């Protein structure tokens, strides 16, 4: 029996598709199928801003020279809010390792899965994920599978979303706990249950998401 790959992007794309109230059903479905097909697509404006935010934080935090240059470029007083935010985010992840991968096998019934993810930053006991959003609401990432999968794969105790709109920042904390495996299983089971009623999506999943680690 084939082993399938499961990533936070896949599960989140499914959840977003099922719960989305903002896009038209056709647009929503197109996005979901794009993720399932593993097609490379042009990042949206928000995604692009997220990439830029992550790149800037990485650049400033990864070298003492860049960090000093950034600090030197700030005025002595009246530092702008966006620069304060940048300093806080940079200090949070400074010294961490970027883009480490994590993976772990998981069995649901007789079916084997390989959970896989690429973490933005891992530092000491915490995994950090940098998010850009233009409209933050409390608990925005509560339902995301990202913290569950990363915590489960690494066994690390803490996960923080570092969220910014470029001006302000917010932090959401999540912790490893005994029930995390069941929570992941429940999310994957929901997804698999859905696939049973969506032939096109099921076919894509079964062809594009087979793990090479069989």
């Amino acid at each position, binding site marked *: 029996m084939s082993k399938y790959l499961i990533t936070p992007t896949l599960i989140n794309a499914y959840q977003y598709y099922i719960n989305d109230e903002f896009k038209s059903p056709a647009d929503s479905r197109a996005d979901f199928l794009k993720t399932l097909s593993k097609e490379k697509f042009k990042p949206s404006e928000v995604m692009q801003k997220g990439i830029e935010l992550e790149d800037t934080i990485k650049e400033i935090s990864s070298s003492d020279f860049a960090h000093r240059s950034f600090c030197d470029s700030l005025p002595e007083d009246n530092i702008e*809010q966006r620069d304060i935010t940048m300093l806080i985010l940079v200090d949070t992840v400074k010294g961490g390792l970027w883009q480490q991968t994590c993976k772990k096998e998981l069995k649901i019934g007789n079916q084997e899965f390989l959970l896989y993810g690429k973490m933005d930053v*891992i530092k*000491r*006991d915490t995994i950090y994920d940098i998010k850009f959003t233009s409209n*933050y609401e*409390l608990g925005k990432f*509560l339902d995301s599978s990202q913290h569950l999968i990363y915590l489960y794969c690494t066994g690390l105790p803490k996960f923080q979303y570092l969220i910014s709109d470029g001006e302000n920042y*917010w932090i959401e904390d999540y912790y*490893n706990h005994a029930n995390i495996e069941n929570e992941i299983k429940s999310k994957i089971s929901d997804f698999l249950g859905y696939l049973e009623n969506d032939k096109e999506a099921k076919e894509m999943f079964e062809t594009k998401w087979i793990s090479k680690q069989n």
Partner: protein
Amino acid sequence: MTFLTKPSELKSPTSIKGLILGDTNNGKTTLALSAPNPVLIDFENGLSRVSKQWQSISMQCKSFEDFLNFLNSKEINQFKTIVIDPLGEMADQIKAYVIKNDPKSSKDGRKLYPAIGNEFKNVWTILKNKGLSILFVSHTEEILKNDVESLKIRCEGSFIKNFLPTQMDFVGILRRKDYNGKTQRFLDFQKNETFTFAKRWRELEDIIEVPTNTIENKFLTNVIWKNWEEKNKKEEEANQNYDSLIEELKTKISSIDDVDTLNLYYSSIYNQHEKLWNSHDMEKAFLNDKVKELDCTFDKKTKEFVSNKKEEVKTEEAKKSEVVKDE
């Protein structure tokens, strides 16, 4: 003398930042006053509802200016915890203050609410810099969203509502259960789809029973603050252990100066240490740097590192011999 500090040498904060939510008249203020040596910033005359024996020193706050003046006075230094009650009323006073200082632009909601947010951020910075523990007390309201009841902080302006909980060490709701004529109260820190912004540190239980005061009002001091101190102590120890381990790995790997020693390390030492947090990833990163420094590659078949320089030398030797053959 050094100006630098290692992460493990950083002292954990002794002050706590918390937000206590709950319905009217269920004892939130009394609970907040059980924190160490508190002063109550009373924005709505809440102290009058607290039993006489549990009352604390308070500042009866009639305006936001009063509060700012108090923050800048020496009087505040005698306390360990500042209790702000309720958050919604404080936000209203900030609004009045902003309107009073800039009546013209305050007529425009697009300017007024960001101005309230900025004022809150300023006062938050002042409060944090005092080094005291800070407790906010707030009423809640329930909003129906997608058929799910969602708990919200009762406070005007979305900035404060969204910003404040993410800055807290804990956000809990004081719940009350009545049965068989008995009342039980709980502090609930459980994050779920109704209470999306609940927050606690990992070592704190999701739900903690709050006993009824009999002799003293010390629940937060004896339970929550104590748990915080114990957590910090454990964290400091773990940080020290982590730093020693990383230093040890770093020293071992930095002393490798040829491919043979690198292979020896890889075959007998690598990935053998007792893992702590991301220590294995750090070891991998140090080793990758060393591999780059020694200019070698990993041979998957032999599971050994091979110097690229040797290859180059061989290639040059081969070239020379080819030249000789041609001649």
